[in-house]
């Protein structure tokens, strides 16, 4: 009784698939594509084509790529193109540090403008602050992260960032003074001028803290390394905390409020804000489109080595062209949907935010005090 007119409803991937099919057919004729292995499960192919890949299936997608690779035999090693495809397929379509509504934390109830001001103040002052202040700020940020985010998020986040900052710390510490500039002093050395050498420092202070072979760590390089590492940590983790505790539309509207004086200079502030909002929303769509194209290519089990570098590059260029073509098509559909929803222009449209939660005065006062304290210490150390 119940039936469908057409078995293939997969119009979503058809856009990407049309060109790829013709491309694959051409390659097939040239003998550059390997036949699909008989061992590859047919159901997987059908499943992957009839459904849109979603965020939670990177392992399954990688499996498809591996199956394609296995079809080319044991001797075939992974080419650069395969590695690029693996990267796309294993990546998530969810942008980094997306908003997390639940559990609610102290930072969720802070006004977004205050969070943005905090970011600017941290970037402007932390670099020149004493090491104790930098360390305190990092510690507070770590504690805030742990109390705000669930463990499954803060643990990998802090691990990755900790590793990055450690690498920066080591490289700057060793590199800043290990390679001294080749400068010839214009003044004669003390031995020539007959003047006594400077007396050795009697205190504990030593400019050179460590010297071994080409490696030299000085007071200056250590300070510079601490500043670089702490500034990197504070900038990235504070931004991440802001993004995870503030809905994107509130971030954009806070930015609009901060940018509003620019209206008098003719800057289209509302249009810029809406562009930011749409960019934040459709970032995931762009990532998913890239993954769809990569999946289409992975499914064909292309033997990149047999194709040679020229043909491989040609395929990549054509795929990039297809990606932009698909994205423009999607943009057009989005524009039509905006029109259907009553959108005429950014100036005449109100974006409603803060429908659910208002910021709490207590939280705002605490954060403003922290900003004031940071600014005060910066003026003291000027």
């Amino acid at each position, binding site marked *: 009784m119940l039936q469908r007119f057409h078995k293939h409803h997969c119009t979503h991937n058809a856009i990407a698939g049309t060109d790829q099919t013709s491309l694959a057919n051409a390659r097939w004729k040239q003998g550059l594509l390997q036949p699909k292995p008989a061992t590859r499960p047919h159901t997987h192919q059908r499943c992957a084509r009839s459904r849109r890949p979603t965020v939670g299936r990177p392992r399954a997608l990688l499996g498809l790529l591996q199956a394609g690779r296995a079809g080319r035999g044991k001797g075939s090693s992974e080419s650069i193109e395969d590695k690029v495809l693996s990267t796309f397929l294993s990546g998530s379509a969810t942008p980094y540090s997306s908003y997390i509504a639940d559990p609610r934390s102290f930072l969720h109830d802070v006004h977004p403008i205050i969070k943005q001001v905090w970011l600017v103040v941290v970037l402007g002052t932390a670099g020149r602050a004493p090491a104790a202040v930098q360390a305190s700020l990092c510690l507070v940020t770590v504690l805030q992260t742990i109390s705000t985010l669930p463990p499954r998020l803060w643990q990998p986040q802090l691990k990755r960032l900790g590793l990055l900052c450690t690498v920066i710390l080591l490289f700057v510490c060793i590199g800043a003074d290990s390679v001294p500039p080749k400068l010839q002093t214009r003044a004669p050395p003390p031995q020539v001028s007959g003047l006594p050498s400077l007396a050795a420092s009697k205190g504990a202070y030593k400019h050179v803290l460590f010297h071994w072979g080409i490696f030299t760590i000085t007071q200056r390089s250590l300070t510079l390394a601490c500043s670089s590492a702490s500034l990197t940590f504070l900038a990235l983790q504070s931004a991440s905390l802001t993004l995870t505790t503030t*809905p994107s539309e509130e971030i954009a509207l806070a930015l609009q409020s901060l940018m509003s004086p620019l209206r008098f200079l003719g800057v289209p502030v509302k249009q810029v804000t809406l562009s930011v909002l749409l960019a934040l929303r459709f970032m995931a769509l762009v990532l998913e489109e890239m993954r769809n194209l990569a999946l289409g290519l992975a499914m064909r089990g292309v033997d990149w080595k047999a194709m040679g570098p020229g043909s491989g590059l040609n395929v990549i260029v054509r795929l990039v062209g297809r990606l932009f073509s698909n994205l423009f098509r999607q943009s057009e559909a989005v524009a039509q949907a905006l029109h259907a929803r009553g959108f005429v222009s950014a100036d005449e449209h109100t974006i409603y935010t803060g*429908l659910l939660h208002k910021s709490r005065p207590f939280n705002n006062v605490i954060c403003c005090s922290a900003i004031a304290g940071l600014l005060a210490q910066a003026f003291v150390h000027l």
Partner: protein
Amino acid sequence: MAATASNVCVSLDGQRQVLSNASLSIQKGTLHMLLGPNACGKSTLLRVLGGLLKPDSGTFSVPSSIGYVFQNPDHQVVMPTVAADVAFGLGRQKLPAAEVHRRVLEALRLVGMEDCLERACHTLSGGQKQRVAIAGALVQNPQVLLLDELTTFLEAGDQAAVLTAVRAAVDGPQRVTALWVTHRFEELTRADAASFMDGGRVQMTGTPQNVLRRMHRMKGR
């Protein structure tokens, strides 16, 4: 009648005739399904009724307030979070925040998504996004909802949830009229009326059972 189209003709690039004298009448407060094979002109007729496409000839009449929901919810859900997206449709009306909140909540309740107010849109499933898109259309209090193949990308569970959401809107206090374009016969069971399109024109209109019976008779010939 909530919406009518009479002898509507549309051609693409002045060559290919997509609609040729298509006529359709939809009764108020019903869920009307428009069926037909691919490329028979269903979506084009919907676009004409939605004011997104100008017909070459023919007339059509729809109420001033209509809501349009597209096939791919990724194109329609434009704001990063659910509440902001549903409220987007009210952007041209200067409403107090409390009123916006009430209407957003009401629309989301109709589609069974009132618990997802704060969710980021990219974390929703296809069916959930589609229901958010429907809520985004419902929040504007439309008299007619135009729904373009909403279930194409959806799994069976999501498909049923979206159908239930539309049914709830039609049966709700606002008595919305819905025109649902589909090519899935199983969805006919939830409809009040149906029309079958082929070759750019509406071939028959009636109750879902009658339309199904006549279609099977046509197929048997």
